[in-house]
């Protein structure tokens, strides 16, 4: 049973900094693949191995110049990458990004779409849901474990109260937590081989608006103050207790 598995990955800035001018993330610096996405790639590769074949395609929506950030996924073993890039997508939020991704995924026709649960920059943790919705596929999120039998995927989901075991039939969308596996290190040969793997840059944008939200204001986190230092003169514990009681902590 050869599977086509798409892994959606996101290039994120190495340094996360807000640009007070635009109210957006400062994306001027270097980017790398979102770290949880490495776990998604690992899961896709492991599934392909257990299914004894198939294709792992990395899909991303990002400016074309960030194509090289997908290279680690190829070195890990993904077969090819598709990068959806268009000037119209600049400033896209969930609306535009999910539409662009869904369109690209439809072109690939995957049996399984794998996401990392969240990204280190925007941290919306919703893209997988929106894409599942657009594709009309079942979605399992916060997945910490999974087993594939035939075309049935049994997943363990982390929920507030504990864990939940759910079964979905492929095709489906899953969003994985970082705990799910340990991503492999590509060998030097893999890296060399990855140089030759294709990254198709697709220059299309979805019809309609790409953003439904506007940032109105941006407040940096409050700056630290010196805090209160309690010198221990033998009664420090009493002063700490008072402090906590005063603030209703205790």
């Amino acid at each position, binding site marked *: 049973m050869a599977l086509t598995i798409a892994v959606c990955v996101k290039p994120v800035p*190495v*340094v*996360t*900094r*807000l640009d007070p001018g635009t109210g957006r993330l400062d994306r001027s*610096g*270097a*980017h*790398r693949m979102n*770290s949880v996405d490495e776990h998604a790639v690992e899961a896709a590769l492991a599934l392909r191995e257990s299914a004894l074949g198939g294709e792992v395609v990395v899909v991303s929506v990002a400016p074309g110049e960030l194509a*090289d950030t997908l*290279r680690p996924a190829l*070195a890990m073993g993904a077969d090819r990458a598709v990068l959806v890039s268009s000037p119209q997508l600049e400033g896209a939020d969930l609306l535009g990004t999910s539409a662009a991704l869904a369109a690209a995924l439809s072109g690939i026709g995957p049996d399984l779409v794998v996401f990392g649960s969240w990204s*280190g920059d925007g941290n919306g943790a919703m893209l997988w849901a929106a894409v599942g919705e657009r594709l009309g596929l079942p979605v399992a999120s916060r997945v910490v474990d999974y087993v594939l039998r035939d075309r049935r995927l049994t997943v363990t989901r982390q929920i507030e109260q504990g864990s939940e075991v759910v079964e979905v039939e492929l095709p489906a969308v899953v969003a994985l937590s970082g705990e799910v596996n340990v991503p492999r*290190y*590509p*060998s*030097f*040969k*893999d*890296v*060399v081989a990855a*140089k030759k793997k294709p990254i198709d840059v697709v220059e299309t944008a979805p019809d309609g608006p790409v953003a439904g939200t506007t940032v109105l204001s941006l407040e*940096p*986190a409050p*700056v*630290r*103050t*010196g*805090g209160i*230092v309690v010198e221990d003169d033998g009664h420090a514990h009493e002063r700490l207790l008072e402090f906590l009681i005063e603030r209703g902590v205790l």
Partner: protein
Amino acid sequence: MTVDEAADVAGQPGFPHLLSPLGVRGIGIRNRIVFQPHFNCLADVHGMPTPDLTAYLEERAWGGVGLIVDGSMATMYEGQMSRKYVAAWDERSVELNRRTTDAVHGHGAKVFAQLNHGGHTSLEHPPPILWAPTQMPEPSSTHTTKAMDATDLRRAVEGFAISARNLADAGYDGVELKIAHDGLLRSFASPFFNRRQDEYGGSFENRMRFPLECVAAVRESMRDDMALGIRLCLHEYTPFGYELDYGLRMAEHLESSGLVDYFNCDAGSFSSFWMEIPPAAVAQGFFRPLNQALKAQSDLPVIAFGRIKDADLAEHMLATGEADLIGMARQLIADPETPRKLLEGRANEVRACIACNDGCLHAVAQEKPIRCVQNPAAGQELLYSERLLVRAAQPRSVVVVGGGPAGLKVAEIAARRGHRVSLFERENHLGGQVRLGARQPHHEEFAEVVHYLEAAVRRLGVEVWTGSDVEADGLLELEPGVVVVATGSQPNLPPTHRQSASDPDAGALARERGLTAGPETPGLDLALVYSTDEVLTGATLPGEHVLVVDDQGHWEAAGTVEFLAAAGHRVTVITSRATVGSELEGTNHAMFLQRVGQSDITVRPLTGLRAVEEGRALLVDVVSGEETWVSVDAVVPVSWRRSRDDLYYRLHELVAESGATVQVERVGDAAAARMVQTVLLEAHQMATVL
């Protein structure tokens, strides 16, 4: 927090106290960071400031510091602790010093100068005549002093006065007198060094008389708008010296004279020099109680000192009112741009001082120009300042093999110059030997060499591949313009030794070609022999008694001794030198020996290793030639390492065969095993010409 996570949460400007201005005697200082005074040995042999000295201080002013205290400078020929102390008394220094004050002011910082008479201390060998209140050597020295007579006292006061006048003419904003860890003035104030029975000794007031005469002379000799400060040793940290209560009394007395505008805290003496310029074994913020105590009693602005490198700690100290200004010497040697980075919300880009003293103190104590392990440009800003980096005319594809300090530095500088850089490291983590060194007790801050570099290369978008062991064959397929081989070095044990299982011998080609020599002691291939790398990566050594052979003299040997002792082994360390850790910088060496003295470690200097057999080692007394067998469970020989250079030679051959135009270079330990300071400088030099 990992470097990655740290990069994720890059700071917004968050140092409201540290970055706020302060007036000292009406002199507006733009923020609270002070570049502490230090002898940098950048004057010429006549004590004249050089362009290097000006550039050194200008770099810190450009980097955003609020106040620089330039010096120490000498007040007279007798008392010039090295011929390379700026001769402030000499009129010829005025115009040259003016270049410095102009340059510093040009970047918006203020600059004071520190004046010192060396008194009973000197860096020269043999020392010139040493002046003191009472004839006796400073205990760290074997050279005795001259008890000053009335003429000497008068001349010394004049020296301060003339120098202060010259400094005023040179455009300094203030003058600081050193009643601190070396020099004449503290020796007068000290009940131990000052045994005089005239009006300059015998009582506290009398002992303070001479320092106060100098303070008064300085005040009278400079402009009214100039500040006068005291660098004050608050605690001598010697068995015979004074402690904090006395230091505070001195401060009170000086303050009550009405002549002083600020205090700059200090501690230690030549007999406790590890407290003057504390190495990493002294905790960060160790001197806070001294600063706090002075601040609590004084109405004057107080500069805190000593092992303050972390901006959060500095901010906290100001916010809680422990001090008014934060003194940093070595942090700003290691990263002149620290204040600017804080200001620009780039706190996570700061390169930390690792408190090694290997570049700064070690150099100037030998009267050599200041250097820094972390900052290749220190003391040679005119050649290597990062401000001089230019974008490469032709961006090239640079492949770096090896993620130790050398490879990382090449990657950093090459990426900053606009090259496309990929870096390969066969371990799962970057850092090379630095990761091993940082596992040794009291050596943890060594890791910050790599923390800075790793954050930098990632921020700059260098493609970093860890867990990726490079082989020559695949390399050319990456179509590099340049390959920089930075594969480091390995312990020089016989290739048949077990070590090769984890770190395959990478010197075979060199050995074949007679380009490297192996160790010749019989028995080094035996199973009871362990390399430092094996020890530090967690090998379990058999039995209790471990023999460490220190043929290296620095941390690789000394720190491994402590590592093994901490792991519960009975350690004997031998060295054919006169002392174990012979290459350690002085403060590190002194504290190492103190710790060894308090442990069960057995030290046998002047002893060499002749042979190893199962369960025993043959030692030789290098003076008498006498040989003895000792029973041992394990042996850890530490000597010069061999370069991992096979890849370099293979690549050259491959490039020649293929006819490709690929530049192949090697850098760092891959060329010759050394220390981080020279490795980073070499890497910087290489990357600037790629």
